[in-house]
């Protein structure tokens, strides 16, 4: 596993170069990200840890192409995400990105099976195939038998498992999880995190997880502490993953 990984190390999957994001609110400017540079490699689980308002979500959204940086470059798999137009960025997301949200964000009128296959519906996968894929994802997150349930008929933990299945069903290269356990109790948090991490490891996917909960960082290969829009420090977990070479941009000044 290590060897396999080190092969990928030469070229990062995600390159973030001197990214700055400033929100303008009338007269006032809010610097959400100051100057952030970071490389993320295929198969990594990276955790962004920081207090509320530190800029974690902003970082995630920009890598996912949901927002454009004020300055700097974001390159994912060789593609300059910040230069893509709406249509291209949608295609990019369809192909490469899965999202797990804090508040699950399932569509209430759809059943579990339908919710999970929704990303495939948008990608025009035919019904037979997408149902099969969705069922497989359901099995992977331990939701077999819940096909016809609606979100309102399920607990938070179950709903988040639907959310996870929806994120992985299309086998995206990268999975983004913004506070995925923010609404869950500690026991369920553990359950859900294990599912996510196992899925990602199994499929050799890359996971970027954003949280203010230190316990979550236990699951990560690297923990990036972020404060006031700058990277404060990077902690590499486990000796095996040590050869990672991180480039830390921005200083405390």
């Amino acid at each position, binding site marked *: 596993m290590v060897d396999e990984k080190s092969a990928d190390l030469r070229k990062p999957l995600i390159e973030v170069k001197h990214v700055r994001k400033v929100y303008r609110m009338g007269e006032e400017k809010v610097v959400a990200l100051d100057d952030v540079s970071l490389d993320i490699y295929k198969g990594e689980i990276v955790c962004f840890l920081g207090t509320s308002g530190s800029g974690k979500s902003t970082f995630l959204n920009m890598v996912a192409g949901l927002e454009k940086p004020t300055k700097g470059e974001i390159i994912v798999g060789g593609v300059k995400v910040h230069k893509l137009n709406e249509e291209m960025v949608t295609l990019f997301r369809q192909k490469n990105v899965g999202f797990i*949200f804090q508040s699950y964000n399932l569509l209430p009128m759809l059943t579990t099976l339908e919710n999970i296959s929704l990303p495939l519906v948008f990608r025009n996968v035919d019904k037979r195939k997408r149902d099969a894929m969705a069922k497989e994802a359901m099995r992977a997150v331990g939701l077999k038998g819940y096909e016809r349930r609606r979100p309102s008929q399920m607990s938070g933990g179950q709903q988040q498992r639907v959310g996870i299945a929806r994120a992985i069903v*299309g086998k995206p290269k990268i999975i983004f999880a913004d506070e995925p356990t923010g609404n869950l109790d500690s026991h369920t948090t553990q359950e859900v995190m294990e599912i996510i991490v196992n899925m990602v490891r199994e499929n050799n996917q890359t996971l970027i997880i954003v949280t203010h909960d230190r316990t979550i960082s236990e699951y990560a290969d690297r923990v990036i502490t972020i404060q006031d829009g700058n990277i404060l420090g990077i902690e590499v977990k486990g000796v095996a993953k040590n050869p990672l070479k991180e480039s830390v941009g921005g200083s405390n000044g």
Partner: protein
Amino acid sequence: MNNLDILGLSMRNLLRRKTRSILAVTGVIIGICAIIATLSIGFGLQESFRASLEQWGNLHLVTVYPTSGGGGGYAVVGGGSGPQDKKNVKLDEKALNAMEKINGVSGVSPREDTYLTFGIGKYIASISVIGVRPDMIEKFNYEVQEGRNLHAGDKNVLVFGNQTPGTFYNPRKSWGSSYSGKPVVDVITDKIVVTADWNYGQPQRNLPTDANKVVYKEYTFKGVGILANAENYETAYNVYIPIDVVRKINEDKAKAEKQRYDKTSGYRQAMVFVDNIEDVKRVSDTIREMGFQTSSMNDALETMQNQARMIQMILGGIGAISLLVAALGITNTMIMSIYERTKEIGVMKVIGANLPDIRKLFLVEAAIIGFVGGLAGIGLSYLLSLLMNTALLPALSSILNSGGGEVTRISIIPLWLPLAALGFSTAIGVLSGYSPARRAMNMSALESLRNE
């Protein structure tokens, strides 16, 4: 996203807010219903006008008069229309030939009217007589219910309008014709005496003293047929005789009364038969261009139909307003629905929905409201139409009927109307949904996602 998935998802969303969707659909139902019902009343009105005019005469016929004198009498409804500048054009064979060549004209006959007394045995009747070209009468769609029609070469031959046989009476038994509809004598016979003498067959006591000096000729005719067209006032009370014979009788009559009979100034009237009613106006115009006066039932029909159309437009306008309200209802429903679902829209965008798909989702929702509302509205319209034509018929016909004829249907829904209505209501839906759908498409995914 394929169309089936879009349709499915849109349906789901509509069913989710049943009350609101039903209200929006109800708006469309009322609008469509109002439009169809009101238009159908207009069509019913037009139809009843036509029906009542057909009783008065043949809608295919244009009657032509020379500009100077001649005319009169015949223009019952609607009246004739005069020429612009030309005057004193003779209504002769040359003119008739020219009329026959007008596109859409299938037959032309000169016409001369008179009033004669008919005797069959001891029975007599005084009947209005129309002289026509015997070979033309069939071209005018005058059909016989008994016997045969006039044919080319017929001389002293006549056919009866179907109400005329009933007017024969025995002058020795009654003072005049006590018309009962039941003929007392068989009119299809070789021995009909025809004369211009009003007093023919009357007991002598009524004679004015100087009338003895005028001696009218008597002619023997053969009655060969009775015309059908029972409901048609134009033919029902006349006897038809070849025009040359009528002219001869009129000439003899003038001679007997020591008056001049002008044979050289052309015919006093002509009848022009137009195959297609739609062409009547054009043909009339052309004939007037030639310098003649015309009159036709169709002129009257047109006036009445314009009136019907106007009523229809006013009613339809009311319907259109209610549909406009329905359109606002759809827009409102869609805007509400988009506000409510802002977050979902954000989610869909983030997990990979294409922007045009988002727009389609909402457009299709609006279209479904329009379509379903249209469908139900059409159903309701037919029900309403049925009601108007049955239970409400007596009440409504007394309000709406101005044509005089008997109204059998207040509301007529032509086949194209529901189809057009369905297309229209769906289009209204799409149109009403367009701007909300655009808004949904253009909302920022992240902003939407933050919306709680």
